[in-house]
């Protein structure tokens, strides 16, 4: 009877069903097929990484205390902090960790947050216990910043059950001053919120670093429903939970902080905050804040310069991607990818979202994802960490993403892998990127459930390295071994009267050929992570720098002329 297909309703329904249903694919999906490796640009040597974690002594395994019940917190942990805690001008590594579920006990060393001291010879020593940095929280992200301007970088850890402020004592140890500082992460009405990312910025330009903390879902063991897909227990979609407001703490300059979420207007906005990014996006002299929200419109807090922020993500063009969709926003980064002097925004997200790249055109941003070639390249990926760093020192920042699915049983549920290779996209200097993962080294393509990532120069050779964590898997330390001979400069800023870290400083590098590069000094990057706060410029074949202009948060402008290249330098505010 039913032999020939008809043009009737069934087929129409089928057609619409297919189209409609495909656009509603669930939260937790990852690509089925490993992405085809990218091809290196014929014009220059490939970006190449060598993975050294094991021989370098970085044996950290991110432990989420995985349970059969699959509590949402389990799949969200993992970050990387690169900072110099002992002022030897060598980047050390701090890696937040989970805790035992359900009591959040961290006494088992497998749950310690870990601090690895850089020995200066491409090896590291675990100094966690000596430094008293094992922590007490089911930790998510962390941020490094010298909040008391004493010359030693402190650390703030964002977590589920507790946030912690670790004051650097300057003798290789830290003290937990959370309670006395007031930066507890405890909301006056809602209690302790599940924090994901923390970041240091001086929003009021008073010379003291303030603290912004993104909060995610209203979550507890009791309110985490049992979620099932295909008859299997799975991590719940965030729509099963209500959102939470973010928190901003103003630094009082005396070791204490005041929660100014309400007076600044930031606390009025309830979202599902993940990564955060800071920049003076509109060149008005103060720092704006972007919050990447998970399946919820992003926030853009425009700093009005009077202690208030206005949420303007829709007007700025970064609330949604061009198609009107929200994405499962994960990490976020402000960096100037096209060297036009305006910091652009990059976001990691999940399968089917694409990873949005918003180009800053002045008052607004435009969704540049497709134009950059990233729509097609990222559509089948899920990433947590990610950001922009100039890995080939050609003067243009490249993109990296730490890929891994959300569901640890996504293969059974969606026929899609949980573990994925990372991605590396080379900046083609024409507004577009190309996938060069395939030539970045075998270890870079290892499929893992990657989470946090941060870039920085671990061995001070002028090439930016990368550290990436993976859930219940090894941490990867990628030394940059790109051999193109391009030149570079690495600058550590020392502020005063600006904040000592110089966070918020705006640098303009003028090349001998008249070209310019721009950099805004912030460490917060990607998913819960902190990059090397030193300012890195790749210089290509240039053998000198015509001028370096630094606009400090204090308003001072300092110009250095005729600088040599291939060196690390310290610039003190004058």
């Amino acid at each position, binding site marked *: *009877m*039913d032999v*020939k*297909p008809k*043009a*009737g*309703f*069934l*087929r129409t*329904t*089928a*057609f*619409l*069903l*297919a*189209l*409609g*249903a*495909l*656009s509603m694919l669930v939260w937790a*999906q990852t690509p*089925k*097929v490993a*992405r*085809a490796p990218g091809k290196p640009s014929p014009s220059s040597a490939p970006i190449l990484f060598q993975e050294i974690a094991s021989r370098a002594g970085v044996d950290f395994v991110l432990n989420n205390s995985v349970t059969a019940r699959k509590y949402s917190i389990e799949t969200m942990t993992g970050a990387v902090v690169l900072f110099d805690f002992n002022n030897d001008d060598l980047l050390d590594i701090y890696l937040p960790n989970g805790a035992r579920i359900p009591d959040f006990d961290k006494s088992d060393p497998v749950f310690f947050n870990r601090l690895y001291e850089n020995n200066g010879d491409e090896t590291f020593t675990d100094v966690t216990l000596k430094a008293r940095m094992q922590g007490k929280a089911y930790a998510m992200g962390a941020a490094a910043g010298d909040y008391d301007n004493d010359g030693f970088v402190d650390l703030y850890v964002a977590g589920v059950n507790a946030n912690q402020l670790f004051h650097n004592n300057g003798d290789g140890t830290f003290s937990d001053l959370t309670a006395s500082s007031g930066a507890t992460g405890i909301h006056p009405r809602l209690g302790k919120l599940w924090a994901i990312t923390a970041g240091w910025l001086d929003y009021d330009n008073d010379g003291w670093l303030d603290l912004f903390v993104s909060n995610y879902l209203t979550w507890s063991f009791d309110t985490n429903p049992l979620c099932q*897909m*295909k*008859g299997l227990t799975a991590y719940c979609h965030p*729509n099963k939970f209500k959102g939470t407001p973010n928190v901003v703490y103003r630094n009082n300059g005396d070791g204490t902080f005041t929660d100014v979420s309400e007076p600044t207007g930031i606390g009025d906005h309830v979202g599902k905050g993940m990564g955060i990014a800071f920049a003076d996006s509109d060149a008005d002299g103060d720092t704006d804040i972007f919050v990447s929200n998970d*399946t*919820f*419109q992003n926030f853009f807090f425009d700093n009005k310069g009077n202690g208030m922020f206005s949420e303007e993500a*829709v*007007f700025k*063009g970064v*609330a*949604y991607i*061009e*198609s*009107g*969709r*929200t994405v499962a926003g994960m990490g976020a980064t402000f960096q100037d990818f096209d060297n036009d002097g305006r910091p652009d925004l990059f976001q990691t997200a999940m399968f089917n979202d*694409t990873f949005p790249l918003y180009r800053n055109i002045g*008052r*607004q941003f*435009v969704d540049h994802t*497709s*134009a*950059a*070639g990233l*729509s*097609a*390249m990222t*559509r*089948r990926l899920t990433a947590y960490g990610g950001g922009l760093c100039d890995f080939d020192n050609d003067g243009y920042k490249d993109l990296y993403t730490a890929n891994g699915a959300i569901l640890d049983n996504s293969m059974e*549920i*969606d*026929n*899609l892998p949980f573990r994925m290779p990372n991605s590396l996209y080379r900046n083609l200097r024409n507004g*577009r990127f190309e996938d060069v993962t395939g030539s970045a080294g075998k270890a870079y393509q290892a499929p893992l459930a990657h989470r946090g990532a941060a870039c920085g120069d671990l061995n001070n050779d002028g090439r930016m390295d990368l550290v990436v964590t993976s859930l219940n898997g090894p941490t990867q330390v990628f030394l940059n071994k790109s051999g193109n001979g391009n030149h570079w400069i690495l600058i550590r800023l020392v502020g005063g009267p600006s904040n000592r870290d110089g966070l918020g400083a705006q640098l303009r590098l003028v090349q001998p050929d008249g070209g310019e590069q721009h950099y805004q000094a912030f460490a917060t990057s990607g998913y819960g992570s902190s990059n090397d706060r030193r300012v890195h410029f790749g210089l290509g074949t240039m053998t000198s720098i015509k001028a370096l202009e630094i606009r400090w948060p204090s308003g001072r402008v300092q110009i250095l002329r005729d600088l040599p290249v291939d060196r690390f330098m310290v610039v003190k505010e004058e």
Partner: protein
Amino acid sequence: MLILAAFLLGASLVGEIGHQAGGAPSAEVENQIDSAQKLMQAREFGKALEVLTALMQRQQAPPPDAFILMATCQLNLDQTAKAIEAFERGMSLYPKEQVLEEFYVTLLTNYIPIEQMKQKLEAALAASPRSLVLLRAAAFVQLRLDSRSEQARRLVDALLEIAPDNPNSHYIFGQWAVLNHQEELAIREWEKTLTLASADARMQMDVYTLIGDAENRLNRAERAETAFKKALQANASLEKPNPASAFFYAEFLVRQSRFEESQTVVEQILGWAPRYGPALLQRALHLARTNKPEEAIVAAENALSASDLNPEQIRAAHVLLAKTYFLLKRTADAERHQQWLKSQGVND
């Protein structure tokens, strides 16, 4: 709803239904059916229903089309539940009557919630477990409700087992496969559909579009484009081209950052269907991209006045308008659209 009622009315009056089963009806039955049809033509549905009710009472086994006419009258009298019952009664008398099943499924699709439709189809399948029409509908419903369920797979398997050479079976299997992220399998199944339905331009358009989308998901841009082009070719040959199919190609080109080529397809779509909202929106986005904010606003407002934007596209239009008005310093207009967005409580 009225559209379906009108469709049923049209079908029942122009004789598409016909007297297709149950043997030749008596002259008396023929007369009563003719009489009912004339009353329906005059939109006297109440009176037609009386005639048909009387016929049903007198006849132990009224012909199948009597049930269709009766349901049509009931639909036009807003008696949906009764219309459904009429079909169910007809199907119980004529369990192998495909036309009844098809109308029944159409009715359920358009008039009742999908969960209820699922229950109804399960009941109907219990009586006619090998009905292709019912299996097909049940499979679609299940794919929509939970494409990853065992039940979805069972229904799809049953279709393939009963009708392995039916293009629809492979078409639906392909749907199941793609919804379960098995794009390669989906493409293979849809290629079988194309072979089995090679003369059907509309099917070619549908299937090539789906193949193009699946290829795109596999990051095989060249293959995707080949399929989309074939879909466009088949589409253009239709008396009434399908804008939704061609729009897939336009979106694909945008993702490939081939904005101008995409715009050419968009304009072709608008040539077929000048009020097609998604294409109007895409035109607006393109105008914004090319720094023509005033024109972008006009196009976006046009898109918003179209009736066929999905919720995401409606949001995209408001986003574009808020942002573009803000750019033009028309703050009140910008805030109006931002307010709309906030009122929607976005939580994707």
